[in-house]
């Protein structure tokens, strides 16, 4: 039976792809039921993934087709069904199914309905392919595939300039990371025996032992470079908050639960390779820590509900990288398990939070600014409840999912600070441990702040006369004449049929049911898989896992207590500040004006990048344009003008209309040719 699932694992990516193709081809006929083939494909893929989950085996591989075969580069389409892969597969297809079902309600009435679902199907195809593939080359292909889907879905409302710009930004920033990945693959190809890029070959003890000294540091560094772009880490995190321009289900699925974890997956998959370079691991941990802290501090002051969630996602991804970076010496196994466990639980509660935000947005007529609504707990009791569950899980309160996974990461960091002492890095990990606790406190605070601002206090519904309501500008960038009657929220183009007349309405059951299931997972996923070590045992069936160092790491009560206290402290503080009208936040903001402004303006990172990168690139482009117009173009035009000059000014005079003259010239020409022929 287990062989059956391993043999037929190709169905997992192909079923959603088939659904996407049906939705794309039959768009005209299916119209409002375009979601049916895609949802069916993803749900079937989930069922197959469940089967594969129980057949996980580090050595189980299946070759689907021959693909690249160029002299000494042999890359088949080969899938590996081990613990890490099946865990990711089940998580991805499960969350995708729920989000797709939610989107069927959320996107109803949108003119691009079939296109949306075709793209979702295509995304699930790429993502499952990414986690299934058994060599770096194929991973790279699907890596690009998810990037393309992300680009297309961020720019789904492509008539809106902001969405188009965000899509472009996401794509270009991701290209920077892809460049690192490509170089890593070239380097691997050059140094591994047999030029075989499969995981089985590269992550084996003999290959790893024989790697040249430079490659041991360089390749992990390049792989981490790739991961920083896809998983939104410093310095390439800037695309993720902007990616919220896409529809909310896309933000939930791609930019919170699945695609952004591809970088974490890549590092976890390559852990035996990464573990060769403890210096790179420290770098990973420091980067993750800095990202977590920075984005958490930005999230503290944002007023856009989705943007808070976006920065929270960046912060939680930073957590995962902290864990991966903590995998020195005997902590390696624990670190991978912690990172993947956090990835797993985070997918549930973050998707839940996003979908709940989407639900709020849907009810508020596409307004997402938290200052413009409040006290919705009576009007949207169901959304309120699910958001609360998601928020508690994110804040890491016992016994919800986030508590266990965050605790494991903190434990890994603490163990690393002891284990890495021999390498001289112990103090770094100790510092990261305390910063991580501080971040946990901030996480709890901003999550609770969003929750209280949205659901507590006096009830308030968005109206166009709010002081915070954006004024429609008649400038060229804002070409929407109907911006004012639609409230000009984040998704102003979306769903013209549920505009302002529906404000405050409840969501349909097709949207509440996925929320319910995700809330259940956010409560149970941690306690079911964490303390029982089910998750850990499953990951042990991963290729190369036994190569990682492991030791005894018991449950650390002190860490659990401190992190819970930090979480509760954050929530309590937010309750004091935001549950009812309170002057304290305003006073604090005035007292620490520079800090507040910096956080509100996202530390001006975008502006700095704009000056340093975008402006210089544009200047270079201007130089290139100049060269193109005045050098290359002139050269080409000059060559094109030459025959005309030659014919008009030199030879036209001989075209005198006398046949005999022409014949004589031809005869002379032949004579000259003959003469030359005889001469040489």
């Amino acid at each position, binding site marked *: 039976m287990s062989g059956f699932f391993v043999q037929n694992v190709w169905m997992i990516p192909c079923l959603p792809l088939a659904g996407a193709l049906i939705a794309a081809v039959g768009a005209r006929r299916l119209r409002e039921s375009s979601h049916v083939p895609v949802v069916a494909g993803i749900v079937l893929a989930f069922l197959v993934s469940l089967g594969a989950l129980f057949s996980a085996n580090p050595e189980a591989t299946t070759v689907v087709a021959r693909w690249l075969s160029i002299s000494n580069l042999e890359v088949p389409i080969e899938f590996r069904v081990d613990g890490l892969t099946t865990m990711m597969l089940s998580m991805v297809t499960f969350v995708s199914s729920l989000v797709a079902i939610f989107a069927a309600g959320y996107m109803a009435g949108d003119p691009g309905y079939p296109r949306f679902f075709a793209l979702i199907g295509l995304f699930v195809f790429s993502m499952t392919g990414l986690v299934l593939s058994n060599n770096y080359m194929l991973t790279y292909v699907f890596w690009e595939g998810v990037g393309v889907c992300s680009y297309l879905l961020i720019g789904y409302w492509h008539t809106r300039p902001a969405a188009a710009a965000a899509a472009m930004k996401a794509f270009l920033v991701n290209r920077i990371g892809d460049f690192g990945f490509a170089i890593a693959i070239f380097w691997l190809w050059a140094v591994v025996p047999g030029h075989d890029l499969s995981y089985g070959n590269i992550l084996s003890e003999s290959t790893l032992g024989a790697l040249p000294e430079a490659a041991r540091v360089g390749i992990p560094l390049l792989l981490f470079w790739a991961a920083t772009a896809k998983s939104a880490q410093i310095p390439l995190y800037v695309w993720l908050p902007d990616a919220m321009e896409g529809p909310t289900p896309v933000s939930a699925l791609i930019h919170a639960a699945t695609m952004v974890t591809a970088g974490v997956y890549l590092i976890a998959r390559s852990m035996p390779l990464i573990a060769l370079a403890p210096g790179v691991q420290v770098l990973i941990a420091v980067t993750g820590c800095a990202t977590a802290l920075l984005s958490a501090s930005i999230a503290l002051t944002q007023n856009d509900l989705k943007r808070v969630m976006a920065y929270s996602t960046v912060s939680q991804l930073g957590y995962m990288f902290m864990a991966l970076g903590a995998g020195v010496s005997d902590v390696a196994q624990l670190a991978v398990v912690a990172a993947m466990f956090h990835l797993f639980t985070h997918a549930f509660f973050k998707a839940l939070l996003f979908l709940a935000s989407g639900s709020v947005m849907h009810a508020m007529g596409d307004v997402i600014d938290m200052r413009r609504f409040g006290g919705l707990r009576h009007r949207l009791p169901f959304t309120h409840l699910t958001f609360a569950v998601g928020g508690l899980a994110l804040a890491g309160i016992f016994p919800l999912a986030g508590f266990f996974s965050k605790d494991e990461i903190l434990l890994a960091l603490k163990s690393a600070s002891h284990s890495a002492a021999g390498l001289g890095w112990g103090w770094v990990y100790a510092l990261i441990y305390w910063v991580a606790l501080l971040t946990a406190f901030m996480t709890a605070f901003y999550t609770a702040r969003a929750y209280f601002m949205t659901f507590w206090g006096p009830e308030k519904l968005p109206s166009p006369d709010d002081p915070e309501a954006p004024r429609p500008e008649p400038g060229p960038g804002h070409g929407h004449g109907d911006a004012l009657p639609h409230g000009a929220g984040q998704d102003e183009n979306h769903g013209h049929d549920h505009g302002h007349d529906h404000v405050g309405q409840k969501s349909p059951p097709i949207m509440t049911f996925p929320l319910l299931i995700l809330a259940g997972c956010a409560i149970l996923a941690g306690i079911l898989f964490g303390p029982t070590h089910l998750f850990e045992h499953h990951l042990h069936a991963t290729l190369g896992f036994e190569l990682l160092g492991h030791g005894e790491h018991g449950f650390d009560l002190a860490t659990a207590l401190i992190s819970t206290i930090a979480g509760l402290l954050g929530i309590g503080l937010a309750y004091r500040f935001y549950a009812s009208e309170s002057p304290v936040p305003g006073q604090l903001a005035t007292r620490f004006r520079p800090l507040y402004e910096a956080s509100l303006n996202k530390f001006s990172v975008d502006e700095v990048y704009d000056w340093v990168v975008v402006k210089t690139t544009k200047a270079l482009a201007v130089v290139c344009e100049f060269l193109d117009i005045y050098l290359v173009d002139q050269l080409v035009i000059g060559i094109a003008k030459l025959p005309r000059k030659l014919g008009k000014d030199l030879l*036209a*005079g001989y*075209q*005198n*209309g*006398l*046949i*005999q003259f022409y*014949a*004589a010239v031809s*005869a002379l020409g032949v004579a000259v040719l003959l003469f030359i022929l005889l001469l040489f």
Partner: protein
Amino acid sequence: MIDVFTLDLLRNYLLAGAALFILGMLGFLSRRNLIVMFLSAEMMLQGTALTLVAFGRYHGNLTGQVFTIVILTVAACEASIALALIVILYNQRSSLDVTLWQDIREEGVPATPQMQEEAEAEPIEPVPGPESYPILTPAGIEPAHPVQPWLERRK
């Protein structure tokens, strides 16, 4: 032995072919009558054909002959088209003189003052030949062809 086709024999054929070709070329370059030019061109073609046949015979294969037959076929087609064109050209100018078609020249190039040159030229003195030359009678009377419709068509 007729089968012995020596190099000397070949040279004779080639000389004959070359002579035909050169005569044709000189005729083409010097005559202004469209039909005579056409005939000269045909003569050049025949010179080439003769050369090809001779080479084919010399090498003992049929390639040259086959090629000649192809040339003849093409020449026949070409003749029909050329004659049709000549008829049309004649209809336009009522003359076969090719220099009347100078206006196909490039724009802005001055016309070659052929007519003026001709007018200034010395009249041709008939060269008195020997008495033994035959005196040909005028070639019959002009056939009664309807000139009128042609002239009308030109307008």
